[in-house]
């Protein structure tokens, strides 16, 4: 696909319609068309401004004719949430989606004060998500990851007041402006997007919805690559095994001393040749409903 030029349309979808109508293309309203050729990045906010102005007016109410009664009434409208993919999160919400403070879950809902990430070898590792599991879940108890779940205490979350205060601090951050990094502040939020000007925005429970299409595809590909042992596609690499040793988990998968050499033990999840054939035959014969595969 030629992607030398891209445009970013922004659609508004009325949820008052029944489900079978609300996701029909003819009912989408294109409110903005942001020209390319490249992503606007942080400047996105500038383009969003007219839409936000309209939304503010709609929240106060505009005179509208009710065709049934023939009378005028004040029509009000509110945005319930945004729908986008993960990369668009930083553009649309102004929070960080890379580095040590990238955990999207916190950015949208809780904003953890101590992000669950630290550096392993050449990557940043996001760990400790066991604390989101229900208490006594079998994965929490599993000794395999015990050291990772060690401090699964309650997460420190921002209240909405604290969050607004954080955003107030960066109110003056403008596009193209360098800002000083202060050590006492958790740099989760990069800038204050104009969506926060909407009076009901802070009270929304779910401000951003992810489209998981790409996430699902990547996870599925890595999983299949790993269990089928496809070279270049698998995640069970030498470095991954070394990371396990660094984290002191999964002893059975770490390199074993064998004279002058090291052995890489075969993992339980890698399929043998006969199992692979079985699996592929299953995929070949599998039948799905229309539109599901």
């Amino acid at each position, binding site marked *: 696909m030629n992607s030398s030029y891209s445009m*970013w*349309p*922004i*659609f*508004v*979808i*009325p*949820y*008052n319609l*029944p*489900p*079978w109508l*609300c*996701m029909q*293309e003819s009912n*989408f309203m294109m409110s903005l068309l942001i020209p390319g050729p490249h992503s606007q990045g942080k400047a996105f906010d500038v383009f969003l401004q007219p839409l936000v102005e309209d939304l503010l007016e*709609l929240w106060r109410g505009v005179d509208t004719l*009710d065709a049934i009664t023939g009378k005028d*009434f004040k*029509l*009000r*409208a*509110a*945005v*319930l*949430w*945004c*729908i*986008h*993919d993960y990369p*668009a999160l930083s553009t*649309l919400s102004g929070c960080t989606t890379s580095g040590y403070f990238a955990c999207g879950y916190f950015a949208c809902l809780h904003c953890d004060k101590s992000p669950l990430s630290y550096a392993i070898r050449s990557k940043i590792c996001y760990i400790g998500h066991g604390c989101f599991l229900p208490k006594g879940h079998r994965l929490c108890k599993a000794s395999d990851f015990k050291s990772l779940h060690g401090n699964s205490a309650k997460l420190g979350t921002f209240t909405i007041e604290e969050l607004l205060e954080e955003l107030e601090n960066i109110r003056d951050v403008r596009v193209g402006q360098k800002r000083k990094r202060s050590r006492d502040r958790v740099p989760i939020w990069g800038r204050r997007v104009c969506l926060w000007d909407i009076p*009901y925005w802070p*009270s*929304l*429970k*779910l401000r951003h919805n992810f*489209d998981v*299409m790409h996430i699902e595809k990547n996870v599925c590909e890595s999983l299949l690559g790993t269990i089928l042992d496809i070279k270049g596609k698998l995640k069970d690499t030498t470095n991954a095994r070394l990371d396990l040793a660094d984290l002191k988990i999964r002893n059975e998968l770490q390199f074993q001393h064998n004279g002058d050499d090291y052995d890489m033990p075969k993992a339980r999840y890698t399929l043998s040749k006969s199992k692979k054939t079985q699996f592929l035959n299953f995929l070949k014969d599998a039948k799905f409903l229309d539109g599901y595969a």
Partner: protein
Amino acid sequence: MTHPTNGKAWEDFDNCWPDFAKDVRNLRLGLATDVSILLAT
């Protein structure tokens, strides 16, 4: 297929803004940055 009316976020919004929720004619909107996302689901 479910409709977001049944969702927690919708309910929460109604509780926060009873004035708005009173009139069913008031519009509730969703913002989407890419239409292909919606059509794929």
